[in-house]
């Protein structure tokens, strides 16, 4: 699949939802929420592992971990779980390249795994990620963190941490830009056909 050029669409066809500054603030807030909800650092706290869903969930997980370390002084192990081989829509798209799955050295058994993705939409990616996790180990619990929840769920799945809720129409798309992959930060609402 050819990489998409982001942010190059007709300005009339897209609207900025979050600026670079907004993204940074949102990630910071989410980091605080994860520390709070997982009681990170407390004696009774579980071992927390952040696993991003490639491609954009992986750098997001890194950013959250960096922020969490700043705020709590605790280094949270991060990794990535590629869901491509677990997707239910492979036959509707051209061949999808695989991404790396990275499991922290101590594994995920009995850990509290926080799955991290950029956009929560139908919930099918999260469903695939839960299947993939099952093949990687047996976490004590799994939570979900997303930068944007745009609605239109097709499965009984909800996020535990949401950066921004964005009501969208089905003919719209949400594009998350991250400097690690896209050269800049931001979140755009785009017309269908321009969204990924």
């Amino acid at each position: 699949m050819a990489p998409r050029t982001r942010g190059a669409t007709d300005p009339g066809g897209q609207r900025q939802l979050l600026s670079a500054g907004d993204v940074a603030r949102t990630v910071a807030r989410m980091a605080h929420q994860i520390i709070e909800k997982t009681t990170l650092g407390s004696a009774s706290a579980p071992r927390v592992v952040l696993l991003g869903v490639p491609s954009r969930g992986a750098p997001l997980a890194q950013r959250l971990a960096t922020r969490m370390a700043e705020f709590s002084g605790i280094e949270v192990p991060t990794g990535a779980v590629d869901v491509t081989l677990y997707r239910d829509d492979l036959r509707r798209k051209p061949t999808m390249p695989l991404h790396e799955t990275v499991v922290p050295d101590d594994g995920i058994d009995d850990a509290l795994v926080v799955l991290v993705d950029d956009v929560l939409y139908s919930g099918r990616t999260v469903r695939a990620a839960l299947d993939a996790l099952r093949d990687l180990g047996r976490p004590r619990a799994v939570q979900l963190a997303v930068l944007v929840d745009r609605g239109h769920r097709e499965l009984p799945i909800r996020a535990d941490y949401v950066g921004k809720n964005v009501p969208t129409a089905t003919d719209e798309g949400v594009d998350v830009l991250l400097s690690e992959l896209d050269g800049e930060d931001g979140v755009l609402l785009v017309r269908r056909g321009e969204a990924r």
Partner: protein
Amino acid sequence: MKHLLTAAALDAAAATAVLDTADGLKHALLGREVHKLPTLRGRTVITMFYENSTRTRVSFEIAGKWMSADVVNVSAGGSSVGKGESLRDTALTLSAAGADCVIIRHPASGAAHRLAGWLRDTGTHVVNAGDGMHEHPTQALLDAATLRERLGGIDGRRIAIVGDVRHSRVARSNVHLLTALGAELVVVAPPTLLPTGLAEWGVPGLRVTHDLDAELPTVDAVMMLRVQAERMHGGFFPSAREYSIAYGLSERRMDLLPDHAVVLHPGPMLRGMEIASAVADSPRSAITAQVRNGVHVRMAVLYHLLAAEEDRS
């Protein structure tokens, strides 16, 4: 990609995509107790082997099963064509019975092409698992995967292919694929075991020589081909002894190789004939890695054929 019939049809980009997927699959399964991915759940893969080959058939079967496909093995007893049902009828029957993919090994060159032609109007994919003396594309892909792994890449590497190139589908597939990936190839064989007009095949940079000793010090890899028993009695060379002296990879010859050079063999090996036991079992030998990579490469091929929207091209 609807079918995988030849390595000759793969350009560098297409081959690299399959090899990258194979790497990804290998990584995805690394250290896991459960070798099972749900990717091809509900898809039916049929292996149709008109020649005995435990090694290749099992590799495809494991590849399909690790991807959760339903794998059915049809063993066409013996290789007698014209006896019983025609290949065309068998293919159409298997397709009508619901085969999403037919993996065929057949003694006739071009059999996989014919199969793809007969199944043109169906959704059934065809993988060539070796057709006569023509091609064996997944073997070349697994050789390329092994070379990439051991040498860090293929572009610009010098690779010697040694032995019965004339009758070898493995050699034909490798000549095309490794050249497409940028390797510089030298073919080493007695004149009787060289294919006709190799120089006119249009393979850039391909060299032919009969002097193995002269090539070994400068190669990054040496691929030894099997010498089939029927060749030994077919007058292609005077004796097994003379062949072994001139073209076998002995311990002495192995010492001529650069330190980093790798030894490949598609198997099954004739130890003491084309390759010395000590060479086959040495750390230079990537023969076990080839077998392991074979499963991942074949998983990748199935993924590219079956886990994407229908491509009728």
